[in-house]
């Protein structure tokens, strides 16, 4: 079941005009910004499919940039997001691609500053609900069967046990889990699907672990 909550159907509260092209895009941007964890100097956004065809008319461009700056779907500053980004010194570049993707509403968000780069690929599946299919080159295969916890961490012993230990302590059951890394000892990714709602306290507890870089949750 891709949709689990009635508020995916009646909601989100958002700035128009399109839930898939505006609110969904804002959420993809929010996820990117949250995982990058700081204000980027450059945001390069590539639109595919229907996003590429209609992004200007749907405010997909302003929404995704607003999201990167932390604006939620209902933030009335979204229509002015490009001007605000300029004021904040963020260079924004839009590109379109006619490459075939698995979903018609696909965006790739590349963020960078002097300290590093970050990239996600998100799809907007309708009604403002999104899925992240790729994160820093790690493919993400989430079933959509439950909320998913995404954890970027250092590939060190004990990192996985520490995270799953916290989930166990809070009696949260793992439905599906993937761990991937590009290279031994470098950055790695845990994608953990859980059966229940995850509270902010649990999230904060995981984020405080020494091996953890960033944590985000989606599908809530």
């Amino acid at each position, binding site marked *: 079941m891709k949709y689990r909550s009635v508020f995916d159907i*009646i909601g989100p509260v958002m700035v*128009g005009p399109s839930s898939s092209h505006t609110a969904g895009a804002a959420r993809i941007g929010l996820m990117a910004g949250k995982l990058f964890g700081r204000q980027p100097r450059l945001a390069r956004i590539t639109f595919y499919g*229907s996003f590429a*065809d209609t992004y200007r008319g749907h405010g997909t461009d302003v929404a995704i940039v607003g999201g990167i700056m932390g604006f939620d779907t209902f933030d009335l500053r979204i229509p002015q997001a490009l001007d605000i980004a300029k004021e904040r010194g963020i260079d924004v570049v839009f590109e379109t691609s006619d490459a075939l993707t698995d979903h*018609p509403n696909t965006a790739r968000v590349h963020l960078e500053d002097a300290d590093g780069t970050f990239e996600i690929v998100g799809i907007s599946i309708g009604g403002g609900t999104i899925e992240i299919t790729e994160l820093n080159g790690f493919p993400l295969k989430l079933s959509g069967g439950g909320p998913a916890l995404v954890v970027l961490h250092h590939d060190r012993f004990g990192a996985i046990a520490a995270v799953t230990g916290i989930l166990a302590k809070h009696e949260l059951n793992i439905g599906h889990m993937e761990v991937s890394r590009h290279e031994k000892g470098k950055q790695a990714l845990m994608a953990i699907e859980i059966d229940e709602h995850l509270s902010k306290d649990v999230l904060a507890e995981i984020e405080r672990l020494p091996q953890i870089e960033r944590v985000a949750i989606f599908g809530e």
Partner: protein
Amino acid sequence: MFKSVEELVRSATERGVPISEIMIEQEVHVRRSTREDVFGMMERNLEVMEEAVERALQGVTSVTGLTGNDAVLMQDYVRSGKSLAGDLILDAVAKAIGTNEVNAAMGRICATPTAGSAGVVPGTLFAVKDRLEMDREAMVRYLFTSGAFGFVVANNASISGAAGGCQAEVGSATGMAAAAIVEAAGGTPEQSATAFAIALKNMLGLVCDPVAGLVEVPCVKRNAMGGANAVVAADMALAGITSRIPCDEVISAMHEIGQMMPTALKETARGGLANTPTARRLEKNIFGAKENVEK
């Protein structure tokens, strides 16, 4: 979690509760939250819908100028007493238009189930609430009932214009509203399912062909007709008329039609109304000639 309308109707009927109750209980379970929290969250959505309608009835224009102020025209026409279709239907039409005009103007709305189709559910709700003497709780329940049907559509078919055409957006919204009106009017869960089936059947095949790729033309007027369609479908079900094709099979048919629909007619602005000479001219005026050549 319920997966089909059949399951939804069966649970409600067996337990002798309205469909909204099944949806509320499921949400409480999924979120591990309290009933008060879940109810409160939906009430805030209702407030956003109310504000959007109020704003539209003062007059609102989109950034491009393609849409706006039709809700005011409709409201004034209803007040003139000259209308033919009936005040309640046209009130729903005015309020559905209004919500979608606010959406087109990048104002704040609540997606139901999407932003492009955000007018139908609140439009009908604010039109029927006085006639059906609905209190605040009944209004919030209206949204849970709409949501329960939308939930089945989203999980079994699609609520995205890019994936399934406008039938997946305004079509779904119309069915959702029809089902909710029936519950608010005291109909049975079975009659809600019938109203949904009748409403969606009459939206099947509806393409998503937005002029210049904007959520304006024909979206605003499709929300208007969705509102009218929902009220009529609800009345048909309440009159005892049934649907020969069960609700879940109508949803499957909608999904299949969406899969067969060419990409040009699924929110790409390549075909249909978006490809008429007037639409291309409007597009050129809005975005300039260069873009037009690229397409």
